[in-house]
């Protein structure tokens, strides 16, 4: 027994000492989608040049934010990628520190709206997406956000749930189509509530939406451009609407956790991810639309992304502070008027 114990202790000691001997480690918290591609295009190439190991933590934003908050005193995560409003929420809770953008050689190459979307350099935008309406062009024509609630689409349309990233922007555009851009979203929520019986479902994942379209449960739905690839080759004539009120969308940002002690390596990684080379690779593989303005891609690729200064400038985005400040009130209204 004693011999087994001694052997086990020796192995444990050997493992721990080898861990100490390992290179530097960078722990990142990211969305779980396309991680195989991220590993190949971003993480592995960076590991090769930094002589370090990247530890990847994935999950939905709530789980990841909760983890960052729970380890506030001794951060486990060094850098994270979040939506702008989640990042602003984390910043307000004191979980983040400003990013030293002067040490990011690629910062100047970013589109202006990606340079400091949260203020005080609390985050740097690394990708955008447009949100518009994907629809069956053989069944309907969509020229306005208000067409979502038209008689032609009654019983054949799905809308994003208020709790998703696409939900509030969609309601914002519905309000705009109604001539009401009040951030309380009261008018569009009321309107959706009146039409609730005509809406097949309020979806929570774009993957779910692709299946509903495939099964002909729905003919139209608002969706982020990043999901377009799931629809365009589904065997039906599909179109991406360019509504007269414009397109909305969102941006994701990189953030630095407060007091993580690994700032230098995290900055190096952020700079690498924002470089023209890596942003181009991600764009070419249709993973993320570039925030780096120097990225050039072919028309074919561009057609599947949210690409180019004009497109980026034309997006009608809700500000992160609006989303963060109004979220509870929107949810309450939604639960009263829509989910009865």
């Amino acid at each position, binding site marked *: 027994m004693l011999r087994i114990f001694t052997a086990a202790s020796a192995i444990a000691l050997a493992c721990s000492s080898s861990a100490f001997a390992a290179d530097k480690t960078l722990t990142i918290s990211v969305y779980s989608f396309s991680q195989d591609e991220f590993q190949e295009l971003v993480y592995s190439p960076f590991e090769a040049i930094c002589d370090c190991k990247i530890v990847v933590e994935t999950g939905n934003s709530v789980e990841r934010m909760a983890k960052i908050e729970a380890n506030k005193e001794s951060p486990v995560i060094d850098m994270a990628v979040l939506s702008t409003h989640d990042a602003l929420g984390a910043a307000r809770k004191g979980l983040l520190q400003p990013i030293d953008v002067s040490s990011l050689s690629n910062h100047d190459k970013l589109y202006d709206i990606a340079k400091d979307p949260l203020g005080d350099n609390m985050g740097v935008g690394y990708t955008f997406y447009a949100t518009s309406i994907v629809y069956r062009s053989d069944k309907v024509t969509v020229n306005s956000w208000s067409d979502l609630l038209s008689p032609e689409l009654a019983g054949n349309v799905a809308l994003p749930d208020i709790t998703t990233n696409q939900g509030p922007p969609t309601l914002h555009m519905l309000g705009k189509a109604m001539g009401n851009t009040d951030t309380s979203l009261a008018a569009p929520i009321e309107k959706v509530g009146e039409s609730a019986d005509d809406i097949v479902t*309020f*979806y929570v994942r774009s993957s779910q939406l692709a299946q509903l379209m495939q099964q002909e449960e729905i003919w139209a739905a608002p969706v982020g451009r990043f999901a377009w690839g799931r629809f365009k080759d589904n065997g039906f004539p599909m179109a991406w609407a360019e509504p007269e009120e414009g397109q909305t969308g969102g941006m994701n940002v990189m953030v630095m956790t407060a007091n993580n002690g690994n700032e230098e390596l995290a900055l190096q990684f952020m700079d690498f991810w924002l470089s023209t080379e890596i942003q181009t690779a991600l764009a070419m593989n249709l993973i993320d639309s570039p925030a780096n303005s120097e990225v050039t891609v072919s028309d074919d690729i561009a057609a599947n992304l949210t690409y180019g200064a004009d497109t980026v400038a034309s997006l009608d985005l809700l500000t992160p502070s609006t989303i963060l400040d109004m979220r509870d009130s929107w949810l309450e209204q939604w639960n009263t008027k829509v989910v009865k």
Partner: protein
Amino acid sequence: MFENRAIGLALVLPAATFAAALFLLPVGILLSEAFRTDAGWSVWSYVEFFQSPRNQTVFLRTLKLGALVAIVSAFVGYAAAFAIVSLPPTSRGRMFGLVALPLMISPVARTYAWLVILGRTGFVNRFLVDTGLIETPIRILFTETAVFIGLLQLFLPLMVISLVSAMENMPRDAIAAARILGANWFQVFWRVILPLTREGLVIGGTLVFTGAMTAYITPAILGGSKVLMLETLLYQRVTVANDFVAASVIAMILIVMAFSANLLLKQIATARNQR
């Protein structure tokens, strides 16, 4: 069983400690959240929860669907269990295996299959249109009907298994004796089978009711946010609103409902027995 009671206790201790430390304690802490307010201990969170018309709807829907699934599965379960125990032993084993088979398939896969079957171009609608019963496909997905069908399929095997076990323990000749004494089939069921299998019904009923009430995947996929149930509401409160107090309130309600269902079923079974 053990000559020395201490040995028995010592054997129970590791499992009991494990359950207490890693289950009872965390659950207790979580649930106490729902009684803690800034001003001290209070039931205000519960009052607030039930004041919302939406929450009332969700609570009643959960109760209704849970009870409906339990009742229908009891009816179907008795018929299936009776048929199974009437078979010769070899066939009985096979049938029992077939009933248990769905339990070995992930609920996610089973629920996704319903998404296809119940869809507008799915098997059910095609059959109804082809046979001329309806002219255009009807909407089944994202309705209470879809959630009911999904939950029934998910939990019916638990009821059948509980009832088969109970019926196998029934004296072989009880039914024949009742028949010889002139009872019709309804009387045989009501006065002989039901009292003798009440333990199975209580266990099956509790498992099905509790399972249906606390299921997440099926209502989330087949009902979506238009058919919220307590479990899907709980998820929404935690992941979106970060509202752990409401989530604790819901968890407590679910626990109380599960215990109440068990007590109620036991009560009904005992009352029947005493008559």
